[in-house]
């Protein structure tokens, strides 16, 4: 049986990203899990490659059915990896991804009954909502993102890197394949909401990895909005930002993991002065932070400029200014993280460093692992020709003075806001309800339904007989 494939630039680049990130994680992991033994260690060393295999097969598949199968398998592999460190986060991940895959499968069934084929590409309007919900769970659309912060922050660092670096990209990859005239306005709206909400939540976070997880949602918003523009430039911009984000977000997660390994905690309130103790980690963090903030010379600048150009060109000025504001917010947030973790003087009660300090070898492995995404980020920032070309944009456009000024202006604004708001950002905030509350309420309702059914199974034979007779009466009415 022939495996229908869809090999084009879009899918091949994503597959290459998957392989690159898996190599990164494979080099990094031995430096991170040196305290583990047995089957946990085995899973951490081998499962990333299974994930890579399934993800590549998924992005290369030529119909939605095979895409769903391989996405489901890759989620299962990640589930095993997450379950080693935190079983309840793993269960949440498994159930939410299964929900997404089931919705995708239902959508594919509807697509087949409507058009007679399941080839990958835009879908008719009546099954669009199923596809968007299914892919939305994977790509963390608003409300459907309820699983992401919890899972990304509680998983082990290499797993988080793969999750934020590639697993969510599969969702936007699917969204990219769906892009058509119908999807434009919806995706623009979703993207803007995601970007703003993500950054807003990130600003009040003190857990380093949770902060990065919220930023993932925010950056995915950029990508989705870019796809929503509908023009080839918009598509190329979203594509570029997806690849760039995969690389620098993986880098940021890996540096946060390194920080956790050395200093013993990921709580920003208890960190400080790590720039002195782990200078290399600080350098890598800086590369990632500058990339995500859109500093010229890094990949984030090039991709964000392309997105802004696409929005400007198609006349979506509201979205353009929203994303500019979000950019400033991103800068503020990363200034906060950099300051609290690396630059300020150590706090009065620092976290106790782990009993067994990681050795030289594990340090080297981790740093070597982080070199790869850092290198790619810088190269893509300086030579973005490949991606710019796919959007029909001249590379020189990206380095036009206006664009560089726009980016540095955002950086300066963000830095200024940070200095102004520093005290406010460091204090604790009351937790504001998030989509998790909806899930909790849903679980309560679900429990009530189960309890009602359980009381119906009371064990009394007369009740059962009465229900049988009742069913007979209902059947006779239905079969008239």
């Amino acid at each position, binding site marked *: *049986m022939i495996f229908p494939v869809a090999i084009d630039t879009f899918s091949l680049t994503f597959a290459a990203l998957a392989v690159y990130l898996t190599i990164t994680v494979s080099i990094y992991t031995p430096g991170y899990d040196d305290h583990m033994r047995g089957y946990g260690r085995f899973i951490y060393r081998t499962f990333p490659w299974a994930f890579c295999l399934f993800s590549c097969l998924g992005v290369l598949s030529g119909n939605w059915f095979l895409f769903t199968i391989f996405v489901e398998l890759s989620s299962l592999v990640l589930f095993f990896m997450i379950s080693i460190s935190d079983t309840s986060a793993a269960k949440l991940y498994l159930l939410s991804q299964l929900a997404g895959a089931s919705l995708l499968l239902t959508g594919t069934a509807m697509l087949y009954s409507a058009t007679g084929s399941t080839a990958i590409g835009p879908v008719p309007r009546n099954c669009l909502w199923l596809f968007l919900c299914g892919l939305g769970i994977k790509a963390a659309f608003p409300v459907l993102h309820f699983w992401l912060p919890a899972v990304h922050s509680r998983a082990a660092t290499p797993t988080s890197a793969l999750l934020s670096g590639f697993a969510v990209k599969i969702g936007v990859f699917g969204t990219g394949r769906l892009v058509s005239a119908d999807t434009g306005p919806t995706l623009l709206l979703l993207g803007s909401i995601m970007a703003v909400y993500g950054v807003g939540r990130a600003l009040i976070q003190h857990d380093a990895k949770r902060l990065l997880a919220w930023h993932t949602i925010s950056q995915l918003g950029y990508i989705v909005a870019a796809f929503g523009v509908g023009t080839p430039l918009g598509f190329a911009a979203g594509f570029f930002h997806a690849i760039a984000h995969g690389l620098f977000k993986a880098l940021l997660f890996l540096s946060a993991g390194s920080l956790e390994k050395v200093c013993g905690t990921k709580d920003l309130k208890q960190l400080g002065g790590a720039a002195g103790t782990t200078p290399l980690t600080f350098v890598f963090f800086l590369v990632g932070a500058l990339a995500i903030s859109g500093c010229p010379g890094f990949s984030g600048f090039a991709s964000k400029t392309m997105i802004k150009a696409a929005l400007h060109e198609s006349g979506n000025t509201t979205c353009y200014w929203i994303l500019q504001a979000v950019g400033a917010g991103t800068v503020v947030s990363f200034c906060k993280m950099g300051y609290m973790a690396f630059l300020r003087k150590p706090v009065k009660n620092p976290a106790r460093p782990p009993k067994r300090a990681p050795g030289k070898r594990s340090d080297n492995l981790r740093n070597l692992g982080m070199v790869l995404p850092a290198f790619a980020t810088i190269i893509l920032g300086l030579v973005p020709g490949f991606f710019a070309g796919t959007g029909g944009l001249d590379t020189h456009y990206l380095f036009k003075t206006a664009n560089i000024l726009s980016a540095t202006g955002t950086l300066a604004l963000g830095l200024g806001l940070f200095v102004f708001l520093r005290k406010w950002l460091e204090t604790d905030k009351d937790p504001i309800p998030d989509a998790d509350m909806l899930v909790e309420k849903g679980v309560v309702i679900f429990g009530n339904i189960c309890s009602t059914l359980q009381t119906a199974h009371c064990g009394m034979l007369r009740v059962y007989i009465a229900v049988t007779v009742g069913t007979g009466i209902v059947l006779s009415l239905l079969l008239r």
Partner: protein
Amino acid sequence: MSLVLAVVTPLLCAFLIPVFHLVWKTLPVCLVGVMGLASLAASLAAACTGWVSPAASLLGGWPPDLGIVLVADRLAAPFMLLTSMGVATSLVCSLEKYGGGPWRYYAIFFLLAASMNGILLTADLFNLFVFYEIFSVAAYLLVASSMSWQAMEAGLKYLVLGTMGALFFLLGTAFIFMATGILNMALLPEALSVVPRETLTVISTCLVLGLALKTGAFPVHFWLPDAHSSAQTPVSALLSGALVKVSVYALTRISCLFFLSNGGGVFRVITIMGVLSILGGHLMAFRQDDIKRLLAFSTVAQIGYILVGVGCASAAGIAAAVFHAINHMLMKMGLFITSGDICERVGTRSIRAIKDTAGVLPANVAIFTVFALAIVGVPPLNGFMSKWFIMLFSVTDTGLCPALAIAAGTIISAAYYYGVVSALVGSVVRRNTGSPGNNDLDSPTVSASSVITGTFAVLCLLAGLAALWPPMQSSFLSIGETAVDIEGYARLVLGK
């Protein structure tokens, strides 16, 4: 000739067992084994006949409108294969667990096998009822065979509710006889087309209610969790794996022959019951602490999937339903046998208690996990494939609601199977971190039942991959086409 043998051989074995008991106090295991093999051979021969060259055999040489006809066609053949595999597996497990001692158990067992073959082969409505009653009484006895109070209570409730179902079925048959004067299932479709609407309503209500009750569809499934969880392990496996499928066959056959052209309301009702079974079964299973009761409720839900497939009233939908019936047999028998082994070793059926023990073998857990992944619907195992086909065809034929119910069912079943598998894994972890004094449970024996469950696990994977292979897909489609081909059935029965 071979078709009658499929019914007569197990019947003969059932009657010979008490005779042999007079000679040997404890029946030799190989004797029962030989009898089992003979029955298996006869059933498989009938199944092959049905698949390769569908045939009818007139009993006693009476012409079709006067006598009883046995028919094997492409719809009956997969069900015969399914039941003979189920009976053989259950027999092997019983022999392994109990030896040749309980002769009454084996006598009833073979009686059950004979009646199942009878239901699958007959083309006469009253003959179907008679075989159905033999089947039911044998099932009640097997459920109660362990003589524990739970088994007795389950047996009583199964009996009362089952007898009510049989009564409605008999009433339906009586009304058909009163309306048309014929009882041959091949002649009835034409005769029923001139029957007035109200009579057809009553007939369909009685027949559907009776058969749905035997199948275990949601509002009338209350006997199923009790019976399937209180019976002994080989009996539970047989009940969940094979018995409910025979009822599904009867429901499919009767609905397609009598109601496909006369009024599509029956299929809509079957779909509704299917959706209710999926949701009700999964929701109830979610709360269970007893592992066998959880598996029984899971059976209710899986029957729902099959009913949704049947309710499509198209060749493709019924083919998908048959595929899921076969897959479910493989998965559920494997689950029951493995969990039965585990519960015996550990001494408890409570999931919470299993987590705190250390007696579970890693091999058992691995095989259980394969079946659990298959039944939840993880690609590329067979459960995923059959669920996909049912979803596909139900969206085309009946709308979006059953597909969304199937999607919801996947998530809920993942949640509760995750609970079971994590409890088992927890027990294995405890075992490996060395709790002293458990060495008597140490030796993993290679028993016949573990060989069978291992084979089923491999078959699950192979069936899943084979489902993507076009020749396999067209074979299954031919099953569905036979089901909806009323004229073909009539030609088969009457032409001979």
